[in-house]
């Protein structure tokens, strides 16, 4: 019944299944919240086995999981610490979400310098996965806009990290998957906007050459991304919509976003995801845009975060969850590799709703383990089907490796140790900066240390 009690029936909660956004894999872990910057490493007292800081759990695979370990959830360590409207420099605790930053920044005429496809990730998580957005060509990845942060190690050392102070820990922590310590606070340079609106254009295309032409023609536009159909073959192979946008230059309303109300209500039964429904979805999506070329003024919410409007949309993939496949290929092999991999995916008949194609620019990432490389990036969700999904992921991973590309750890549940070590040959150097008390199921899997703990 009622109110605050601490009794024998109500002590610290034990291990319970913890899921990432892909809902695969799911591992038991104890969750301990970090409420204050000073909570770590004191919270480690009495904890045996490894720990891992986790924010919103929006990465897809096991990079935010720790089987039978302790997850330190940072989301209530979410205070704003300082903001300078002259420079856009924001200082905040690492558990603040990008949604909370937007609620603060947009009414003041500022926006995130780089944003992923969901705003429900934490600042610390955005750094730890060195996330990228639709403006990679001009802005680089998230870490490029983080001039400084504090890293606390499990031995109690507090390190100020920037390109000048502790530069190797700075580089190891950006894209370091949370393994180098706990980020307590960070600075982020926001950029000025005058309106919530985006000058949006959507253009239909067929095939990779048309895509590359469009990319070249619109390279002065800040945000570009394409949705492509991975189901259709023949003349509709690689048809898609090239979407581009810039922040509107016409001063407009800067009110904060309303809170989303829709929640995906149930886990969809498996039969709902089959070739017919997915193919229908792709056709509808392609023709939702009736004309080959549309131009409109659009709010930033549907432009950047179309899926955030439906909370828990990952339930659409049912109980089994989903796998995401996301690669980057260098320009030398980008075109040939993309066609080959997409053909493999189309032929598998396993493709699903949202496939995203975009290009990465030349701005170098500051992280030692960052994912982006100049070339083409592609991402696709697969429903999990016993016996077929995993062998396909293995084949696609090998193809990515053979084309000289790499997969994104924040989205991965399938990389083999051999693939990982080829994608990230610097992993041994990175391992020197890892905190001995911190580990993740991803790290144990791809370094081949599963069960060593």
């Amino acid at each position: 019944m009622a109110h605050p009690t601490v009794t024998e029936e109500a002590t610290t909660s034990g291990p319970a299944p913890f899921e990432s956004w892909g809902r695969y894999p799911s591992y038991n872990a104890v969750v301990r919240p970090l409420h204050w910057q000073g909570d770590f490493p004191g919270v480690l007292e009495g904890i045996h086995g490894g720990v891992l800081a986790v924010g919103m759990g929006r990465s897809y695979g096991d990079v935010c999981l720790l089987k039978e370990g302790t997850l330190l959830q940072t989301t209530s360590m979410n205070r704003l610490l300082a903001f300078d409207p002259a420079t856009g420099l924001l200082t905040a605790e690492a558990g603040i979400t990008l949604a909370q930053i937007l609620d603060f920044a947009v009414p003041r005429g500022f926006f995130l310098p780089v944003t992923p496809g969901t705003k429900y990730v934490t600042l610390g998580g955005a750094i730890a996965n060195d996330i990228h957005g639709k403006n990679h060509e001009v802005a680089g990845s998230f870490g490029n806009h983080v001039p400084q942060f504090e890293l606390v190690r499990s031995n109690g050392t507090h390190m100020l990290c920037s390109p000048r102070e502790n530069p190797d820990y700075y580089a190891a922590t950006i894209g370091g998957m949370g393994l180098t310590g706990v980020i307590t606070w960070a600075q982020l340079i926001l950029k000025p906007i005058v309106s919530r609106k985006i000058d949006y254009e959507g253009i239909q295309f067929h095939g990779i050459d048309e895509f590359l032409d469009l990319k070249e023609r619109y390279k002065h536009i800040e945000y570009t991304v394409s949705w492509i159909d991975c189901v259709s073959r023949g003349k509709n192979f690689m048809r898609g919509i090239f979407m581009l946008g810039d922040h509107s230059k016409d001063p407009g309303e800067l009110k904060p976003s309303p809170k989303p109300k829709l929640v995906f209500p149930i886990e969809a039964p498996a039969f709902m995801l089959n070739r017919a429904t997915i193919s229908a979805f792709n056709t509808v999506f392609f023709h939702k845009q009736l004309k080959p070329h549309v131009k409109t003024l659009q709010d930033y919410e549907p432009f950047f975060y179309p899926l955030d409007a439906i909370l828990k949309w990952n339930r659409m993939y049912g109980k089994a969850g989903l796998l995401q496949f996301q690669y980057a290929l260098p320009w030398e092999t980008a075109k040939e590799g993309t066609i080959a991999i997409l053909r493999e995916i189309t032929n598998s008949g396993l493709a699903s709703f949202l496939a995203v194609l975009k290009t990465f620019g030349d701005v170098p990432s500051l992280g030692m383990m960052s994912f982006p490389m100049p070339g083409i990036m592609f991402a696709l969700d697969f429903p999990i089907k016993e016996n077929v999904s995993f062998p396909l992921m293995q084949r696609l991973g090998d193809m990515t490796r053979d084309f000289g590309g790499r997969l994104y750890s924040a989205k991965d549940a399938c990389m083999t140790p051999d693939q990982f070590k080829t994608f990230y040959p610097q992993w041994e150097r990175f391992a020197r900066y890892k905190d001995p008390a911190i580990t993740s199921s991803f790290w144990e899997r791809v370094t081949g240390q599963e069960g060593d703990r």
Partner: protein
Amino acid sequence: MSASANPQLEPTLSTRRNTESAATGPKRILVLGATSGIAEACIRLWAERGDSLYLVARNADKLAAVAADARTRGASYVNFAVADLDKTETHPEMLAHAINSLAGLDIAYLALGVLGEQPRAERNFDEAAAILHTNFVAPVSLLTWLANYCTQRHSGTLAVLSSVAGDRGRKSNYIYGSSKAGLSAFLAGLRNRIDREGVKVITIKPGPVKTAMTQSMKGSEKFADVEKVATTIVKAIDKGQDELYVPGIWRIIMGVIVHIPESIFKKLNL
């Protein structure tokens, strides 16, 4: 804890800008127990609308983070003091200093409180006394001074966090519950005395809320969202509502619970 020992600490002091208390302008708000989860969520809302804040809590690092957050969100003034509010003898000086710093007072918000360890408190009177002191005796000390300060000016709001747990004692948390029962009774009496003097007394009774205080409790993931609770509280303080259950469903739940006959209630496992 006599305030009159030092004339400088008399409640009559610091009237200098009290008359400026504009109904529409930024409110001058004193928050006691400012690092509690519910208090912090309210502080964010007050800061966002540009109120002036004076924050008091025991832990300097936590308080500094809460104050920085309030300042960044747009509070027109933020100051804070590190103090152990269990030490009632320090209250008059601390309160006088806070009100001077705010140049007057519109709202005093009391959020100090501990959950305590019920099983330990059942065996150990010192533990029970410590819970009663923090949750009941210390607020009474603060409210006595504040009530007299406000009564002399015929203005001000005293908003105090009590709990639904004070509505009826039950075996799993009756030490905490009785401290809050005492506080609720004190507030009802105080309201009866000074409402007619133009001073609002607001009794806030939260049900279980998801905060650091309740994180170790069973089922805490289902507790009320602290931001929603804070929004309701801030609105109720603006309206000057006498008594508030939050979330509102707890008025009904406790309405039922207090009416269960004792002959049955004593056999329940609550």
